[in-house]
């Protein structure tokens, strides 16, 4: 059923194809569409977000697409559909998989009917994540096969293979791209049509209800099928060995997977590496490990360098093989200190490792550069979060207070001069961390900041916990009517769905009220005096209090007329800059200056200016 054998793949390889320039995430989406996917769920998270968006944008109406409230909900919705025979796709980033792990671990035992592919995008670096966790490890832990594409083209082709494998064994399957695959673009050939998938319908069967006795039986089956899939993967065309002339004389090997394989190819393809004798194995399915192929690769070698990102997954598998079969091959990589064990690989990092390993001259060093400006990410000019943070800061001036933050654009409130994020752990944790802090430091005022989308994703249970357990915290909901950080996805509070329908907006104040948080005001943070007063009042209340700061993200509204600085009135005190850190304001010839192309007319600089030198708007 794998690549090259199933009918749908035949269409891809031999049928009519189109030339397209696609981002990896778009390629994954098209791979799913062409494989006849019936239902797609997910939760936004960089670098995975564009997959679901691409399906929704190119939906002919036959695919059900939703942004679920979180990854757990997404996976469960997809599981239900798969039980009924639908082909389903679930998308998330690596930390989202932690949220979805409860249903996923059990689903590996229960199994599915229609093919289910869980795309979990890993983020080496990390570039925009909390952790550098490795989904290949998660695949081993959950005993679920994982495809690991090395390019956008491969990611496209693998989707059909992943669905076929999922259905052949009745289990969910991972596709694990990394940021460079997700966000890299390539010209590629894709099919011009989809192969429709017929939904058989749900059939009642005791197998859909997990019980300890059934789990024991299923566990035995899982252990039995894992090596079978591993052996099938040994002949999977995206796993392969390459070697130049006289392979019998080659004693050094390189094993690589994901984008690191492409860095390896790039390194070996350069003129300074020409004539190098080395055997290269590419691993596109790290679990179950293609043991037979790896043994063939190890045959005749004395030494192997493993080039991979995140955890030493391939490296450990090779070490196990060497132990199991008493092979005297030295396996080098992260565990031996040859390859960096944290952060992202690059052509240069791989080149440095491989040139040393292969006895080639060290690559050129970079020239010294002059001191360059740092450009840390900042809240946008006109961002309502700046006003909200500033109002809380003003209200708590002179008081001991701790500000627990959360995941979203507003994590950027940590930057100076606002400096308003004292903790940030994971989605929804701000509200609960504040409770823990409060139980042991009752004399300190504890705030929790949470965005609207994060509130729906995992904030609500924290509020229930706070009210039930009589915590003393003030929750600040930063409601900008969108999921801003990941590129403006709708959520339950916006009422828009990915099927183009409008549903009833779910009201955050009504939820809070139902939980038992009383008198929740909805305040426009752009009026600093009113906002500060509201914070003072909420902070004085005992128990759980909350404020909703409601103002739309600048990216979903039109800018208001820009503000201007009257140079005659400006004393150059820099208070507007040192209090707010707005990227639109800078000093120009000893006076403050507002860049009109950046200003959104939010007015808060005019409100903090002690000289009344900032005028504008209407």
């Amino acid at each position, binding site marked *: 059923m794998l690549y090259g054998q199933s009918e749908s793949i035949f269409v891809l390889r031999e049928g009519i194809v189109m*030339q397209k*320039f696609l981002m990896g995430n778009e390629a994954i989406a098209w791979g799913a569409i062409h494989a006849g996917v019936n239902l797609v769920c997910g939760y936004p998270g960089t670098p995975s977000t564009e997959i679901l968006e691409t399906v929704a944008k190119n939906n002919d109406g036959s695919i059900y697409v939703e942004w679920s409230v979180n990854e757990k909900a997404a996976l469960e919705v997809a599981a239900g559909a798969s039980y009924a025979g639908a082909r389903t796709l679930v998308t998330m980033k690596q930390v989202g998989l932690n949220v979805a792990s409860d249903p996923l671990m059990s689903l590996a035992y229960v199994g599915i009917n229609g093919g289910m592919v869980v795309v979990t995008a890993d983020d080496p670096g990390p*570039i*925009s994540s909390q952790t550098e966790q490795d989904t290949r490890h998660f695949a081993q832990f959950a005993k679920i096969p994982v495809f690991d594409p090395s*390019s956008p083209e491969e990611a496209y082709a693998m989707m059909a293979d992943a669905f076929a494998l999922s259905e052949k064994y009745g289990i969910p399957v991972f596709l694990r791209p990394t940021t*460079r*695959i997700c*966000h*890299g*673009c*390539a*010209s590629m050939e894709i099919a011009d049509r989809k192969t429709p998938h017929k939904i058989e319908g749900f059939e009642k069967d005791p197998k859909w209800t997990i019980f300890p006795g059934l789990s024991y039986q299923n566990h035995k089956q899982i252990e039995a099928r894992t090596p079978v899939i591993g052996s099938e993967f040994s002949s999977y065309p995206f796993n392969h060995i390459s070697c130049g002339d006289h392979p019998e004389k080659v004693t050094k090997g390189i094993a690589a997977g994901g*984008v690191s394989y*492409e*860095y390896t*190819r*790039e390194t070996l*393809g*350069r003129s300074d590496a020409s004539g190098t004798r080395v055997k290269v194995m590419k691993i596109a399915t790290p679990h179950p490990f293609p043991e037979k192929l790896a043994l063939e690769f190890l045959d005749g070698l004395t030494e192997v360098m493993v080039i991979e990102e995140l955890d030493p997954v391939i490296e450990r598998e090779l070490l196990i093989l060497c132990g199991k079969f008493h092979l005297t091959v030295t396996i080098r990589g992260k565990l031996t200190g040859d390859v960096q064990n944290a952060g992202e690989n*690059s*052509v*240069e990092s791989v*080149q440095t490792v491989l040139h040393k390993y292969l006895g080639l001259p060290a*690559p*050129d060093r*970079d*020239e010294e*550069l*002059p*001191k*360059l*400006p*740092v*450009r*840390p*990410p*900042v809240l*946008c*000019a006109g961002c309502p979060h700046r006003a909200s943070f500033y109002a809380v800061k003003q209200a708590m001036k002179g008081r001991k207070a701790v500000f627990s933050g959360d995941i979203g654009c507003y994590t*950027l409130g940590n930057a*100076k*001069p606002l400096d308003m994020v004292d903790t940030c752990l994971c989605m929804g944790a701000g509200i609960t961390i504040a409770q823990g802090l409060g139980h042991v430091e009752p004399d300190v005022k504890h705030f929790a900041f949470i965005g609207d989308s994060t509130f729906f994703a995992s904030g609500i249970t924290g509020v229930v916990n706070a009210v039930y357990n009589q915590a003393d915290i003030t929750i600040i909901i930063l409601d900008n009517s969108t999921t801003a950080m990941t590129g403006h996805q709708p959520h339950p509070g916006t009422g828009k769905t990915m099927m183009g329908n409008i549903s009833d907006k779910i009201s955050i104040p009504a939820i809070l009220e139902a939980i038992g948080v009383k008198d929740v005001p909805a305040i426009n943070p752009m009026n600093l005096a009113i906002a500060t007063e509201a914070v003072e009042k909420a902070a004085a209340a005992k128990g759980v209090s909350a404020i909703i700061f409601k103002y739309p993200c600048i*990216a979903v509204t039109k800018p208001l007329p820009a503000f201007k600085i009257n140079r005659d009135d400006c004393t150059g005190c820099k208070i507007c*800059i*040192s209090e707010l*850190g*707005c*990227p639109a*304001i*800078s*000093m120009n010839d000893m006076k403050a200056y507002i860049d009109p*192309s*950046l200003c959104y007319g939010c007015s808060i600089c005019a409100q903090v200016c002690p000289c009344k030198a900032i005028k504008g708007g209407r």
Partner: protein
Amino acid sequence: MDMNFILAGVGGQGTILASKLLAQAAMAKGLRVRTAETIGMAQRGGCVVSHVRIGENVHSPMVPKHSAGLIIGFEPAEAVRCLPFLKKGGVVVVCSKAIRPVTSSLGDSSYEAAAMISFLETNSGKLIVIDGDKICSDCGSPKVLNVALLGAAFASGDLGLSIDEIGAAIRERVSAAYIEMNQKALAAGARAAEAQASGNGRNFL
């Protein structure tokens, strides 16, 4: 022959669209293209680097160091930051206007555009500096800087794409209302670069 380009700027300057236009123009000629972006966490104000790779023997999505024939700098300091990507004798096309980060307003780091430009001059095979502000105000929008820079890059002679091929990509990817404005900026960028090559363009520095 494989070609590698780096486009370096600050979020919001249109770097990514410019890389898409190059990719579109190259694909229309039947060439294989790979692009990748490195973007900070913020949409605005952070560094944005687009890597564009054209050719058959291109594997890494990102340009290896010392391999770019051309760097298109939307901002002088960002062009300098990407200099390690430039191959020996490579060309730099840069917009002269510095964009100071908010940290520089807070007094943490400041820099002078002139010092950056002179560093680029010493460390590149050829440097073309254009007054992006002037072209943008002539064309009527600050948003056309990206296309003006593509025009200048074409005029440098190292883009491997003709101005008509870029123009066709603009017609394909830019919404109808802005096509004319962008074509004007493309031509203006090319003229500015040509004027400088003939020795008339450096007075504003």
